[in-house]
């Protein structure tokens, strides 16, 4: 049992401070974005409409930006700062560079949030009803795009902060294997650097100058393609930190240790290689892109299933090992020996379970010709609320129950809330997501304030279950999920505001893997090589089609801006 003398916060005060403040912004974004989500769930199901329908899209933009970009990026920045210091056993420098990334990201967030909220508040002369995916030629206020750029650039500097900490460790530890958590952070950031080039180019070369009126027209196809160049790997930017927790923290909480360290490295390398050359699978039904390139992206996407399947094996094997260490027996009855009364464990385990369901619905999305049936229907948010909305979000909340006491030196408060919160989330998401999937199959579109068109026959043809039942499950699920956020935030605020305690009951020690890194090929750690191969794969997948789009004129066929 750790005492205050040995908490992470005492050992590495600079990392702990950066992590705490990053979590602070993340949780604020979660509160606001979550509230928007609740209002949307009640609005589009016509249970209760608090705002006129055009404002739905303002909230939808806010929900996407605050949760998918801000909550995730800040939480990840905090988690990685902890992971680097914890596994390298050294503090972050904590100098002006360290602080510059946090400040840049925070200023960017405030700018983007103000531009979005401006659509609701007449005193703020801005709007950005363009959704998280930008939707050129709809045009938002330039402040929105500048805010997004600052958030991105800040995350790049954060990556540099982690790399330079690793390089300084390397000087003192020549010849040693890269510790697993650090390896995961570095590989994730390399993927992030590669993939954010797409959205950075989109905003800096095209969208920002166009929104400022410096160029009159831009090509929606090029900007869209650059967005999705980034838009799929960002999914893995959300997931890989959850994987970091599942590979390193979850086995410990289960009472055991990781099954195989080398395979964890293989999985992360596969994600670095395959995450980016897949973006066309978001554009299967777009004009202007030939079928062959879509097919290449589809093949790469399917092979991306492999590292997730390997993860499922390793994580379940590690949990089972933990359960058996705790006296679990039998083929399945070992499940009963797991610490289901431990919120950090329960949250991660339930997140993993729902991720399996989300993985299977993702395979349907990836199936190029099946995609016609589900593209832009409610099936898709049904899918990603299981992945980013649960695999990542619930894991992040679960990690917080375990990590925040170590960052603050304060024992977790309101433990009863923490205990039921993962179950509330699981139930809410099961209701909302299954209903969204089924709604998608009967053609209910996503991103709409009022799915109540005057269709022949009066409504969407009913598939499994009735339309009313689907709407009701979405609303009830949304209410439960918001309750889950309130419970989580109550625990965080109570813990953070509480007094320091002599013991905190948790520590950051990660037990070594059953099969360690020693016997694995050293080439696995050669991140420069893997990055180079990833670049080559991107050039193969994107070089020719992007060249085609640019060859007919960088800004043509051009579109004039339209204010939503």
């Amino acid at each position: 049992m750790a005492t205050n003398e040995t908490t992470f916060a005492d050992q590495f005060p600079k990392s702990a401070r950066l992590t705490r403040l990053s979590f602070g912004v993340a949780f604020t974004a979660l509160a606001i974005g979550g509230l928007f989500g609740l209002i949307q769930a009640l609005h589009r199901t016509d249970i209760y409409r608090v705002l006129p329908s055009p404002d739905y899209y303002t909230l939808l933009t806010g929900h996407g930006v605050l949760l998918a970009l801000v909550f995730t990026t800040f939480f990840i920045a905090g988690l990685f700062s902890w992971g680097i210091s914890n596994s390298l056993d050294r503090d972050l420098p904590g100098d002006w560079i360290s602080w510059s990334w946090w400040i840049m990201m925070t200023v960017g967030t405030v700018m983007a949030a103000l531009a979005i909220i401006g659509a609701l508040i007449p005193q703020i002369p801005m709007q950005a009803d363009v959704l998280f995916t930008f939707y050129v030629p709809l045009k938002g206020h330039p402040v929105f795009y500048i805010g997004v750029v600052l958030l991105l650039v800040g995350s790049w500097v954060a990556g540099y902060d982690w790399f330079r900490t690793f390089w300084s460790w390397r000087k003192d530890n020549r010849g040693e294997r890269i510790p697993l958590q650090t390896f995961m952070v570095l590989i994730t950031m390399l993927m992030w650097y590669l993939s954010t080039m797409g959205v950075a180019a989109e905003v800096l070369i095209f969208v920002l100058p166009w929104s400022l009126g410096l160029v009159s027209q831009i090509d929606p196809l090029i900007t869209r393609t650059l967005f999705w160049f980034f838009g799929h790997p960002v999914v893995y930017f959300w997931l890989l930190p959850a994987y970091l927790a599942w590979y390193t923290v979850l086995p410990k909480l289960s009472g055991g240790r990781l099954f195989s360290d080398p395979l964890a490295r293989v999985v992360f390398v596969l994600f670095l290689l395959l995450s980016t050359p897949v973006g066309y699978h978001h554009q299967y039904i777009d004009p202007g892109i030939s079928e062959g390139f879509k097919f290449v992206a589809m093949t790469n996407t399917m092979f991306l299933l492999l590292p997730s399947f390997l993860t499922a094996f390793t994580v379940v094997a590690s949990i089972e090992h933990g359960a058996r260490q705790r006296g679990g027996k039998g083929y399945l009855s070992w499940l009963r020996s797991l610490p289901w009364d431990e919120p950090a464990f329960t949250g991660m385990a339930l997140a993993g379970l729902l991720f399996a369901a989300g993985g299977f619905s993702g395979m349907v999305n990836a199936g190029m010709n099946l995609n016609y049936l589900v593209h832009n229907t409610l099936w898709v948010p049904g899918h990603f609320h299981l992945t980013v909305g649960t695999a990542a979000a619930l894991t992040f909340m679960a990690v917080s129950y375990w990590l925040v006491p170590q960052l603050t030196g304060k024992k977790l408060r309101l433990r009863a809330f923490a205990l039921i919160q993962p179950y509330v989330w699981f139930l809410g998401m099961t209701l909302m997501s299954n209903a969204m999937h089924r709604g998608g199959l009967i053609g209910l579109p996503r991103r709409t304030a009022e799915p109540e068109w005057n269709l022949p026959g009066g409504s969407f043809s009913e598939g499994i279950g009735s339309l009313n039942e689907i709407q009701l499950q979405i609303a009830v699920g949304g209410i439960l999920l918001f309750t889950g956020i309130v419970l989580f935030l109550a625990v965080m605020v109570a813990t953070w505001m509480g007094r320091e305690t002599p013991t905190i009951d948790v520590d950051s020690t990660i037990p070594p893997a059953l099969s360690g890194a020693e016997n694995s090929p050293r080439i696995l750690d050669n991140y420069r090589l893997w990055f180079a191969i990833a670049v080559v794969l991107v050039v193969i997948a994107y070089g020719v089609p992007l060249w085609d789009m640019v060859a007919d004129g960088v800004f043509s066929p051009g579109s004039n801006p339209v204010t939503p």
Partner: protein
Amino acid sequence: MEVHRFEKIWTAAALLLIVGFISTIVYGAVGPGVTMVEDDGGTTDQADVSAALADELDWSQVENFEAPTPKAQHVSGDKYEAYVVTKQFAFQPGTGQPLRVPAGSTVTLYVTSPDVLHGFEMVGTNVNLIIMPGQISEITVEFDEPGTYSMVCSEYCGAAHHVMEGRVEVVPQSQFDSTEG
């Protein structure tokens, strides 16, 4: 590097599943002949489409695109083609007058937008396209039975996106031939 026997079996099974999925897609393409929307619809000038819709330009001046008419145009045999414009916040044809096609026909749809992105979703079918200014989405659809399909805009296009809807009427050949349009 030690890889557990179970993990080898699991990996092989996962690879088999992946190859299986890819095979089903290849089969869908070469068997039932599901083709993807691609670049063969060509490009056009968004401003010209906009001007033609406002009667400021003749449709013959618009590159790669023809005047949208409520009735599909006969090409040959059972083959027809139809030009549709999606705009804030209507389908033309579709919203005011339905798009009319004969039953038992194969219709190639050409769809473009004068303003922003739209979605062209025929509810309850796999006809589902992204419509982009400057690009022409082309897809060939078989309409076997008479009936009415709804079109909804499945891509966010602005503040009144949720009211954008239309209809496709599939009518018997004799009825189709006897109507004006």
